[in-house]
């Protein structure tokens, strides 16, 4: 299906509303997986369709995947009819923008063979088996998104995005104890991304770690100085900074689903932690899993300091939440598919690196724990009360790693966590994820990351 009707949709919707947008997305995807040495089949998808958004007394959207004007017009009419109901109708309109953009890929998705994809999965399954893993799941997916956007302000944007995603789950049994690891990698790229990942080494390390962690002692609960690895910095940045600064959450738009924010009712700047803490969301980072030059509402992407020097300092905004706040959108409007509304979403959210070397972080820790990665995690619906269970973790004694510890638990709150940060490392690593939000639920591709960080006097259990 091609976007043949997009101009006609915009013309018709614009003539009957105070503001209108038309969007067409065409998404092709492939997914292959291996489970415990067995190939699980291949799924390929192609979906495309139109979304129209109109504003009159309220905001209304409709979606159609028909290529017939009569069908599409019926959907647009449904949106127009409902836009005359009561409701909220603030929306940032902006100026005319005309541009096109594309993710550059060296090994293009369409040129990378099924045999090569299958071989990657099979090889990684073999590495897991050789490492003694009893549970082995490997999945590889790719997708290409072609997008066309028009609005009644005259904007015309087209985008062509290529994304690669690899995930695995591995489980081992050691002395009757089970340990598991789930990892996600992704990028806006071609298949050259997989070449540079060095997955075999990562998987090998992970399995070795699981065997050792399964046999490690549990912690005696108490207060410890801790060092967290980039994987934990990333999930913390995502869960307790990115989500609570989404402005649609702050004003209650997600209240019955993913919830609101501890920043609801607060004025920014608002202190959330020590001055060492800076958290950024940056959709303009080329190659990142959440990269885009223009968001799904035709607004140019930009880097945003969500937390600056320990203070909440900015929001993630889409057109609707910017309209309510009375400011310009900062390019955070994202949707997971052609038939879903754009919401205020994260892209690449990370704790900004500081100036401490990895070894320096250990200096002066008499009794501590180094938690390099995590397994279970969750957070309450205002993004304040959170839990992270360590996966690869070590005791620290007098500044030195002194043995493994099994599943140490950080159960804290956002301000306590960020307030305990006293040193931030120079390093920076990212993991991929799929961020869920909205009703219907929509998952968007994101990176989350950060450096190693030192936190003082944190209760572990």
């Amino acid at each position, binding site marked *: *299906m091609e976007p043949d009707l997009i101009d006609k949709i915009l013309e018709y919707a614009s003539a009957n509303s105070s503001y209108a947008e038309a969007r067409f997305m065409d998404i092709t995807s492939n997914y292959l997986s291996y*489970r*415990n040495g*067995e*190939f*699980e089949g*291949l*799924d*390929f*998808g*192609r*979906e495309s369709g139109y979304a129209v958004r109109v504003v009159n007394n*309220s*905001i*209304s*959207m*409709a*979606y*159609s*995947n028909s290529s017939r004007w009569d*069908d599409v017009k*019926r959907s647009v009419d*449904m*949106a127009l009819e*409902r836009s005359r*109901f*009561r*409701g909220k109708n603030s929306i940032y309109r902006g100026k005319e923008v005309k541009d096109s953009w594309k993710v550059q890929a060296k090994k293009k998705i369409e040129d990378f*063979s*099924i045999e090569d994809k299958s071989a990657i999965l099979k090889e990684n399954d073999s590495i897991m088996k050789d490492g003694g893993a009893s*549970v082995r*799941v490997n999945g590889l997916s790719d997708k290409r998104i072609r997008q066309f956007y028009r609005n009644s302000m005259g904007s015309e944007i087209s985008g062509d995005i290529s994304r690669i995603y690899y995930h695995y789950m591995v*489980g081992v049994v050691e002395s009757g104890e*089970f340990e*598991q690891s789930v990892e996600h990698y992704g990028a806006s790229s071609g298949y050259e991304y997989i070449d540079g990942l060095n997955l075999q080494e990562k998987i090998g390390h992970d399995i070795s770690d699981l065997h050792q962690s399964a046999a490690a002692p549990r912690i005696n609960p108490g207060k410890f100085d801790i060092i967290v690895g980039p994987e934990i910095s990333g999930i913390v940045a995502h869960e307790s900074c990115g989500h609570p600064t989404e402005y649609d959450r702050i*004003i*209650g*738009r997600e*209240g*019955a*689903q993913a919830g609101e924010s501890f920043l609801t009712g607060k004025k920014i700047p608002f202190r959330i932690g020590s001055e060492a803490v800076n958290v950024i969301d940056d959709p303009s980072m080329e190659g990142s899993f959440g990269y885009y030059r223009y968001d799904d509402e035709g607004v140019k992407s930009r880097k945003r300091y969500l937390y600056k020097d320990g203070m909440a300092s900015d929001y993630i905004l889409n057109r609707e939440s910017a309209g309510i706040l009375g400011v310009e959108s900062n390019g955070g409007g994202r949707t997971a598919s052609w038939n879903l*509304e754009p919401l205020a979403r994260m892209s690449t959210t990370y704790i900004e690196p500081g100036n401490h070397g990895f070894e320096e972080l250990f200096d002066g820790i008499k009794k501590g724990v180094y938690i390099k990665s995590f*397994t*279970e995690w*969750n*957070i*309450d*619906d205002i993004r304040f*009360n959170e*839990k992270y269970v360590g996966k690869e973790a070590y005791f620290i004694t007098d500044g030195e790693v002194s043995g493994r510890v099994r*599943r140490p*638990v950080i*159960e*804290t*709150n956002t301000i*306590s966590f960020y307030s305990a940060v006293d040193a931030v490392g120079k390093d920076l690593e990212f993991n991929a994820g799929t961020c869920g939000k909205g*009703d219907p*639920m929509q998952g968007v591709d994101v990176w989350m990351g950060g450096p190693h960080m030192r936190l003082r006097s944190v*209760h572990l*259990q």
Partner: protein
Amino acid sequence: MTSPDLDSLMKKLTSRGFHEIALQYTKTRTEQVRFSQNTEDLHNYWDESSVSVFAAKGKRTVSTTIADFADADETVNRLWEISDRIPENPRFVGLNPEKVKYTKPQDSIDSEYDLQDMSVNLVNSAIENGAERTAGVLYNRSHSITVKTNHNECTYETGGLEVLIRSFRDDRTGQEARHFGKSIRVDSKTIQQIGKGSAQPLSLARESADIKPGKYRVLMSPYVIGNIISYSSDFLSYHSVESGLSCFADLLGKQVSDSGLTLMDDPLDTGGVGFRLCDNEGTPTRKNTLIGNGVLKSYMHSYSTAKRNGAETTGNAGILNPTAWQLKISPGKVDSEKLLSQLDDGLWINNCWYTRYQDYRNAVFSTVPRDGAFYVKNGEVKGIAKGIRISDSVPSILGNVKAVSRDTKTVKWWEEIGPSSMPSVLVDSVNISKGF
């Protein structure tokens, strides 16, 4: 796209050389109203149709979804080309070859609803009962579905009304999330009761109770047990069992819960939106007892998993990964109000979310209470239990069930609870953790 296109698509796939084919045509019309701060945010309308395709050449399996039938020839060629280049899928044994008959479901009731009026009614009821502000969503869905395989063809209608409202008063919240299938006509009184129910937890307590981490007797509302059961239903799929990722492995015929607990999958109940007449390979669905009187009776099976396990399909395909359609815990003998009044020292938790596992094999998880968690002493709510988490395991929760309420609710909430019918459940020795 129209349903008769399935015949030509089946012919194309068969003549291309595929041995086993399962097609599922879905035509959906959905209307939605989202609201927050007591006012509508967005009206949404979807008009979509597509065909999902599963095709096998021997044990080489491919799947896709066709949204534009103009692409059908290209898609068939692509499926065939792919099928020659992928490894065999040992998990696929075949589609259910048995010629079957389908039961006629209860007649649908005309389900035209004015969601705009309904949302106003819902919000007003919550406000009249103590809410300062509300957020939520209403859906009215209609799905026309045809499943066609080499062996069978099944057509049915499903969908219904979903009503979600969350009420807020300062930092207190309450929530109701209900679903009603096509055989139910929802009147304004029911909507008012849902609005009122969402506000009910707001007035139960104002002060916080000092809750220490430890083991508690917990009265879990239909939303809490619904969440835990929804998140753990995959463990009852034989796909998870044979993958080494189920806490129910090797427990068939063994006691896994109190004798008062019976868990079923009941997709034939047209009172819920989880109604479906057949599974994804055309097997008629049926009411399956998964846990009967505390004993693990059955795993969920497709034809392929059943053959691998030496069992019969239970009509839960997912051709490769069986799944639950509409879970139910059978009613017990005591009203939930009485269970609360008899709670001498424990917690009553009204809802939870963000359930995550640190260990799938042993089903070790935590979940975060919301929308009302209270400390109860001698049957009376004494205060709000803030900042707590249920940090436990599914075997432990099921093993410590002490009572199941007589009253049940149809519950379905966002990504957290699949379409279900759940009672309140009293569970002993639930591990409660808390942040520092």
